[in-house]
Each structure stands twice: as C-alpha cells, then as structure tokens.
C-alpha cells in the first residue's frame, strides 16, 4: 500500500474528496498535510487538491505557492516523486513554476461545473499508465479560471515533448473548438512536466470514482498512480523516479 499526501491549504475544499477517493475507494493510505508544515513525512505521492487555496481573489494559486509545504513539494517533485495537481492544485503548480503556462478566466467568464470529455493523449506518466491512449474519459470540471494559456513556443515544446496529457474533446474523442469548454490553448486540460512525474489537470478525477456519483472514469487516473508506485516499490525505492516510465 502506498501513502498519498493530500496537501491542505486554508481554502482547499476538495481535500476531503481526494482523501476519500484514495483511502475509501482505492484502499490506499492517505494523509492530510497542513500547508504550514515543512515535511511530507515519507509520503509516496502528493496530491494538491482543488479549492480556493487563499480565496484566490488575486489569481488562483498565487499565494499558495509561498506556503511552507510547497518548498518540500518542489523537492519531492525534483526527486521524481509523483505529484498530481487537480484544479486549484494545477493552478498552484503553474504559479509555482512546476508546470509551464498560466490560467485565465474561462472564455465566457462564468464558473462551469459539469461533466466534460477528455481524451487521454499520453500514457507514460504515473497518472495515466493504465489508460489507453485516445481513450475518452467523462469527468467533471468545476472552475472559473481554467482557461489555460501558454505562448506558441511553449505549446510547440509541449507538443514535441509529448507533455500534453489530456485534451477537451467531443464525446467521440474528436477535437472541436465547440467542446473546448473553457477556451484553453490547444484545448489543453492537463499536462505534465518534462520529467513526466508532475501532472496538473483541471478536471476532477476524484469526483468520478464511484458509480453513485455518475462516472467512474476518474479511477484510471488515480489507480495508475497506485500501480506506478507499486511497480516502483517492487523495483526499489531509489528508482521511484522510474515510476514515470512505463
């Protein structure tokens, strides 16, 4: 069993959801880590959950990146540890410079909460290794500032390095600007860093892990991490970084 650290910023509000999914749905060890702490205490993976970390009146994630725990998260990521930023967690990763790009308000400015369709673009990350490439997942979004932006050179680099992990698509997986729900550059819904161990995504996989909630498509993302960690553990702790490689 692996231990997932769920970081709690004062305005996090999907922390309990991530915890519930990891612990009660997937049967893993899960632990809350208060943002003022400076240790991840041996966790195997880190989840930065959704919410409004500091009210996010200025910019989503802008203040959270200065929380004491973020230094530790950066070190953990640099050492190859798997980190998943969901929604606000993704925004925090962008603000912290752990992932490239930035967020604007949604194209139509309104907050949007609904199920969307995501196409899995790459599978060689700890959070997608169980998914088939091209598979379309139905997972909810809930954000007002999820309109991802990166300049053309950055996008070209992301494409070249295969760092775009999820895209908003039509239900059949075809790309169509009408289904790019928030107006993101290149319909990007999620991406990873160059080392592929840090993944940020706007949709909420933890909200799509139980049939009672309307979709189980998010499980493949969280289960991928469980399998990746198990594989890494089997291969020796030092090789945790290798978890990212399929």
């Amino acid at each position, binding site marked *: 069993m692996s231990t997932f650290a769920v970081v709690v910023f*004062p305005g996090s509000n*999907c922390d309990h*959801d991530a915890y519930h*999914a990891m612990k009660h749905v997937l049967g893993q060890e899960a632990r809350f880590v208060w943002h003022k702490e400076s240790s991840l205490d041996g966790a195997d993976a880190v989840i930065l959950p*959704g919410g*409004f970390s500091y009210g996010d009146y200025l910019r989503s994630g802008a203040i959270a990146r200065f929380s004491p725990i973020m230094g530790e998260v950066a070190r953990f990521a640099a050492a190859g540890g798997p980190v998943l930023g969901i929604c606000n967690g993704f925004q925090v990763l962008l603000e912290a410079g752990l992932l490239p790009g930035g967020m604007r308000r949604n194209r*139509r400015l309104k907050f949007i*909460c609904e199920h969307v369709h995501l196409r899995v673009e790459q599978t060689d990350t700890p959070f997608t290794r169980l998914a088939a490439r091209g598979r379309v997942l139905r997972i909810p979004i*809930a954000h007002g500032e999820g309109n991802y932006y990166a300049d053309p050179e950055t996008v070209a680099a992301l494409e070249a390095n295969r760092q775009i992990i999820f895209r908003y698509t039509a239900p059949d997986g075809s790309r169509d600007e009408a289904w790019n729900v928030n107006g993101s550059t290149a319909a990007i819904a999620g991406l990873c860093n160059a080392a592929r161990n840090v993944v940020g995504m706007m949709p909420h996989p933890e909200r799509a892990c139980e049939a009672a909630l*309307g979709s189980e498509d998010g499980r493949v993302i969280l289960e991928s991490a469980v399998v990746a960690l198990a594989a890494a553990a089997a291969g020796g702790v030092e090789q945790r970084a290798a978890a990212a490689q399929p």
Partner: protein
Amino acid sequence: MIDQQTIEAHGLTADEYQRVLEILGREPNLTELGIFSVMWSEHCSYKSSRLHLRKLPTRGPRVLQGPGENAGAVDIGDGLAAVFKIESHNHPSFIEPYQGAATGVGGIIRDIFTMGARPVALLDSLRFGSLDEPHTRRIAEGVVAGIAGYGNSIGIPTVGGEVAFDESYAGNPLVNVFCLGIAGADALILGRAEGAGNAVYYVGAKTGRDGIHGATMASAEFDEKSEEKRPNVQVGDPFFEKLLLEACLEVMRTDALVGIQDMGAAGLTCSTCEMGARGGSGIEIDVRRVPQRESGMTPYEIMLSESQERMLFIVRPGREAEVERIFEKWDLHAVRIGQVTGDGLLRVRDGGALVAEIPAKALADEAPLYDRPASPPADLPRRQALDPGALEPPPPAEALAALLSSPQIASKRWVYRQYDHMVRTNTVVPAGMGAGVVRVKGTGRALAFAVDGNGRYCYLDPYRGAQLAVAEAARNVACAGAVPIGATNCLNFGNPERPDIMWQLARAIDGIADACRALEIPVTGGNVSLYNETDGEAVHPTPVLGVVGVIEDARRVLGRTFRRAGAAVVLLGDATPELGGSEYLKRVHGLVRGQPPALDLERERALQRLVAGAAADALIESAHDCAEGGLAVTLAECCFQSGGIGVDAAISEPSGGGDRGAAAAALFGESASRVVVSVADGREGDLLARAAEAGVGALPIGRSGGDRYRLAVGGTTMIDAAVAELERVWERGLARYFEDEAA
C-alpha cells in the same frame, strides 16, 4: 436628547418608544435607541408575524431542535442530525445583486455551522421580474454569480433550487437560500450565554461601518430614497468564512464552548442580547476591544454594524488558551471583549464609560407584538374568476413548445452549471434532475431536500397556495425516494401594515400549518421577509418551503428521467380538470386567474408514502411530480437528459367532454398530488396493487422508448414530436436570454 425626529428615523413608533421608556425607567441615549431600533425591527423581532407563526406545528419524534435557535435540527438516524434553515437576502440583492446574494449565502452557512454542524449542501430559491427587461437580466446574472461565487469558494455544493419569473418581482427580486448541515445528534451547540464570569469572545472579520441599519432597511419598503441607503451593502469574503467555519468546527469538537452565535442582522447587538436572553443571564462587553476596520467608529456604529463573517462565543473557564490556539492555527484572532454576568443586563462599555445598559430579556423577548388588521384584497373575486370555456386554445403542440421555452419551465442548466454542485462528492442525483440528494458518508443513507413555492398560486389564494408549496416540496423529496421528516420556510411578503398583505401572510401561515400537520412534517424554523415592495407595489405573496427527507438506502435514490426504453409509465394520483393559476394560462393566454389546484392532503400523503415506498422496494426507476405545465410538460421532462429516450403515452377523454378547454386542462392543468413514474421490469402489477391498497389512483399511460414524444388524449394524438427537438427548445428557454447559441 432624543427628539421626535430621531425616534422616527429609527423606525420606532410612539408606542414602541413609550415601551422603551418603561423598560429602562428613563430616557435612552442614542446608542440604546439604536439597539432597541434594530432589535425591534421587523427583521429581528418578527413583530407582525410572531403571533401567527405560533400556529406552525414544531414538534415531532425526530425534532431535536425547533424554532428559536440559529437553525432547526432533526434526527436522521445513526446518531446524526440534519441541521437546516432557509434565509432571505432580498433587499440587498436588489441593490447589489452579486454581493447581496453572496452575503446571503454566507449568512445562512454561518447559521448552520453555529449549531455545530458541517454544512453539506445549499439550495436556492429565486424570483425575478421578466427576463425581457435588461435590468432584470443583470440582476439575475449578478445573483446567480454571487451565489456561485460564495458557495463554490467555501466548498459547499449548491445541489438544487428553483427559479421563477413574474413582473411582480421586477423591483424586488427574492433571493432565498437554504443550507443543510450534519452534526452529531448529541453535539448540537446552542446560542446561549451562561455562567457568570465566563469570557465572551469575538472572532472573525473586523468591524466596519457596513450595513448599519441594514436590519431596519430590510424592514422598510423601497422608494426613491433607498438609493441613499445604498452604502449599507456589504461585501462577502468566502475565504475568510471558510477559515471561520473550519476553526469553529474544530473548537466545537473540544467541548470548550458554552455557546456561540453568529453576528448576522443587527450584528453585535442581536448576538449579545439574544445569547444573554436565551441563557437567562447578563452580558457585558467593551466595544473598545472589538477589532475595527475603520477609524473613529462610535459605540453606536460598532453595536449596529453588520460586517460579515463574525461570531461571538462564550468559553468555559480555563479553556481560553486552548480555544485561542485553534483559531490561531487558522490565522484568526479570537479577542476577549467581555464576560457573562448574573444581573440580566446587556451592558456596553466604551473603555471606562458605560454607553448602554438594557435588560437583555426585555430587549429580546418583550419586543412589540402586533395583531395587525387583515382583510382580503378587494379584487380577490375578480382574480379567482375564470371561464376556461371562453379561451381559444392553440394547437397542443404549439402550447407545449411555448411552455417548454418559458424560462419558468425551461432547463435551469444556465443557473446550476455555475454552481459547484459536486464538491464533497456526496451529490448522488445530478443537478437539475429533481430534488437535491446527498449521501451521508459513513452511513448507508442519503438526504433529499427541495425548496418550492408558487407566488402565482398564493396571489390567487394564499391559503391553498401555501399548502401547495408544502405539498410540492414534500412530493419532490418523496420522488427522490425519501420520507419527508422536517420543513423550514421563508415567507416573502409585502408591507404587513396593509390589511390585504397581512391577510395574505396570515392565510399563508395557516396553510403551511395545516399542510404540515396533515403531512406530519414539523417545521423547525424559518425566516420572514416583509416589506417586499417597490413604490407601493407588493411582490406576489411567496412562501417558500424547504422540506428535508431521509432515504434509508442511498442506492435506492431516484431521479426524474427515464432510465431505459421499454419501461411502463404510470401516472399516480388523480387529475381534476382545472387550469387556474397555471403556467399555461399565463404563458399562452397571458392570464393570472382562477383558483389554484385543489389539494386533498390525505391523498397527497398517501401518494407520497406510496412513491417513497415503491422507490425503497425498487418497484420504480424514476419519479417526477406533475407541477408547472401539467402532465404534458412532466412527461417531456422525463425524456430530457435521459440520453434521448422517448415516450408513447395516452390518457382517456377528459371528463369535461370534448371541448378544447378540457383537453388543454388534461394536458397542461396543474392538478396536485400526481407523479409520473417509470416502472421496474416486471413490477407493474405490484405497483398497481400497492396503489390500490393505498387508495391512490394509478393509471398506466404508456411506455418509454423510441426517440419521439407522443401523447394522445381520448384516442386522438395531440402531440407527436422528436424528443431532441423538444429538448433543444427546453434547453434554450432560459439560456437564450444570457448567451448566444454558440456558448
């Protein structure tokens, strides 16, 4: 000295001022006058409604806390309580839609966590004028964004609600918000100050000059002068309230508190005096110690400020440091501002100076009580007169399209899409699919709740209209598979000093009382919002009912849409041909006339039990109550959001004979106590047998399936249309006012 003008400016009548003199045994100073004026405002004292509210049934085996505290509570099993209440923020939302609605959400959430409950869901009940008016669209946009802005940020899902449109709300929208929380049944925390010498603490946002006289504003009708009162609007800070919420819940787990109360309307005044009065003790505070956001605030201003996100609490002796530490963890500073005393007085100091001294109990409990004159509006007979035979009905398919595209009936997706309705991962019925339903983690149960009200019905007959609101809210909950166990209400009316309005209010309360008694649903609290008028024009009388129900087995939860093709469709309940007060009359004939639908509470109760029981035993797969738009609209809504499942249904010739008015009534009449269900495979016989046993009419009317909507009356096909086509009309009906097709 206090002169006549000052007394009037504080909204106190001569008689009321006389009573102040009697209570004090002397003249009040200005601070004291201010304190009396807010405590005795309609908003805080319920002086016009209290007498009538006593008629509501408030007791029941499951009731843990009835009216009088910050919120009511009912036992939901497993040692847990559902804590819930509804609040209005009508006036502020007209002045500043975003912030008015947002702070309304903040206020009701505080009421819930003050009771020691973790808030788990919100519902909103909204009324606006006609969307053809640009100003109304702006108000609607702002209100919805404000509810979203606050609820989404603090992380409490808005899982449902209702919204309706009528010209009577153009200058006075209604914004009612319901919140439900879950607490340990034996861990409810009450708002009382006890134990002389115990410390009184203030925690939360600093006090500014916000909303001074907000409570009196909410008690006076709008006129041109209200423009000047505008700076009283407050800005909400959901992030700060989130800190307050988490910190308070953490403190409450320690049993270090004696009592806690949020500072809502009338701020520090109301919270100190009510806590003192409830605890039968006195309370003394020093306004100098109150954290202040602005400089130069007077004791008067500090006592009357309505700054948001503030709480007052009493700590057990010796536990102060522990409590302060928890607040520090959340970056909040709890400040000791006074202590509980034994002399029954509310005493306010400004450093060394005594600035107010008032008997707390008299201030809180001896507020004036009015039995205001009431008489029905002169034009009531004209309102209730309707001759359906004189109407020239359009072809049914056209009428259906008109109804589906009415913003009143159309999909509310434009609204709930802006609300995070999924956070906390408990929402087991998707938004827009019926009542709000959340599971209770750690138990097998779920809770269902709905808010309902129909101002048009109440305008035509407040007594029956209010009963219908109770029945519909409870029926919506039953349609989710739940047994209703408690209710709350928000009474939105005009100026009670007018006998016709007072009559509406009294009749509506009678209606709620009788309906709740018959349906055995105790009322555990509520809110009264009066003076909802602009330039002498009152809104339609609008009691909004919130009903909470329990589903023993969360896996048996139902939504309103068909789940598969080939299911038998059964109409439960009986229709009487009637069109009074219907959306059809309004939409198609431009009339608000007639008698609202008849209601037999015994039959209603039998129907609700039947539906909840059939759901629990998995006899049915979906249930949707027939409400606005009648059977024709209800059937269409069963098809919508189902992935395009159609229906083929037929009902018999209406009893009124062959005239076209009778056909319209059969299709679009809003007869109460009816539910359309789709039946589990092979269980139709069981369902019909049970219905017969319960004395509930049950009419198999057709089957789900195909991609068309077909409805025949007396052998004649009235409507035959592609579901996709109807659904598109319904999807755009509200959204078209706010966004172009592409969005």
